[in-house]
């Protein structure tokens, strides 16, 4: 990290002190094994877990993890759902201070690896929701993969602050705020 930090010090407007790295990294965590999503769905060598969505008014985004247990690469190439007028694969990109969102053709799922759709990254964007969705509601999304074909899965609407994706709303055990003056 020191190699990365050094050039930053040449910019007088910005100091990303050690505490930033430590505390923000600590503020972001991933309890990926926490079973709070819908049941795992399998298609071919792919396993999709922890599918959930966040919704505000007539728009939202769906997130999940796809594991590829096979020996061949695959890719998510499409998503569809009856609940929305438009469904598309998107990616939020940026540096944390400026962000944008752009469509993606496919999301790679390497052999033996996984693709993670999560806030601030890849997501299935849901536009023009046909009916209001509330926390706890479940709806179907059909995913299409380049190799494994198509599969339906249930997606559950979650609160923005209820997730295990790094934006968890609760202080996790063992996580303490930084002491004043101590990086």
């Amino acid at each position: 990290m020191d190699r990365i930090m050094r050039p930053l010090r040449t910019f007088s407007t910005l100091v990303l002190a050690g505490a930033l790295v430590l505390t923000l990294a600590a503020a972001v965590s991933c309890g990926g094994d926490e079973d709070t999503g819908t049941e795992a769905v399998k298609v071919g060598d792919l396993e999709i877990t922890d599918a959930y969505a966040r919704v505000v008014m007539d728009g939202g985004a769906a997130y999940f993890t796809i594991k590829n247990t096979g020996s061949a690469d695959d890719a998510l190439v499409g998503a569809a759902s009856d609940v929305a007028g438009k469904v598309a694969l998107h990616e939020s990109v940026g540096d944390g201070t400026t962000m944008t969102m752009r469509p993606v053709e496919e999301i790679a799922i390497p052999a033996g690896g996984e693709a993670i759709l999560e806030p601030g990254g890849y997501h299935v964007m849901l536009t023009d929701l046909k009916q209001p969705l509330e926390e706890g509601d479940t709806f179907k999304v059909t995913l299409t993969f380049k190799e494994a074909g198509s599969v339906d899965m249930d997606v559950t609407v979650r609160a923005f602050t209820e997730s295990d994706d790094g934006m968890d709303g609760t202080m996790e055990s063992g996580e303490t705020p930084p002491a004043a003056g101590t990086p």
Partner: protein
Amino acid sequence: VTSWCRIRPPGLWACALLVVVAGNLLLSACGSGAGQGASTNPTAGQTDTDGFYGMVVTTPLRKPSFTLPDTSGVPFDFAKETEGYVTLLYFGYTYCPDICPGSMAMVGTALKDLPADVTDHVKVVFVSCDPARDTPERLRQWLDNFGESFIGTIPASQAEADEIAQRALGPFWAPITNEDLGGGDYSVSHPAVIVAYTTDNLAHVLYPFGVKVSAWEHDLPKLVEEGWTGS
């Protein structure tokens, strides 16, 4: 991590910044191979952050002056109305499905949890980066999902939002632009950082995308009770 540097950073600093911020905030430590610095302390001995979860800047940002109509159509004089308050300023848009609602929800949840002696001293101001689609009614309804006290303001044009963002964010600014999504739809490239002004009308601490509720619940009382007592 280096792949993030492709994403047209506004300058070299941004590229350096995104290595660290993206590594820790965006990619997190979710098996991406990034964020490995979490277990080390590369700048031991520095005390610049004064114990804030937010990103402390050495050259604080000045609170800008601007007046925009709020969601009731009443002119909102930002500098005047926020004088004496800890003020969180954000630039976003309501058709943003991922970043904006996530950021607003974290702040809103923290403000619901914190006691009134803190929250009475905090104002949240949202500047629309998409005035073409963010009607006053729509923005009000959208903000109410996160905080009914959140103040929504709507510039006359995206260019006006951009001009205010440039003054507010200084070196952290990048142009606000529309990105074509096809079929007449578009997304907006916008600042994802929440600027936190203290009562000295300066922002010493910024909050990039990904800051959790617990971090806000730690920092907001500090910003209110201690003001800025850092470096």
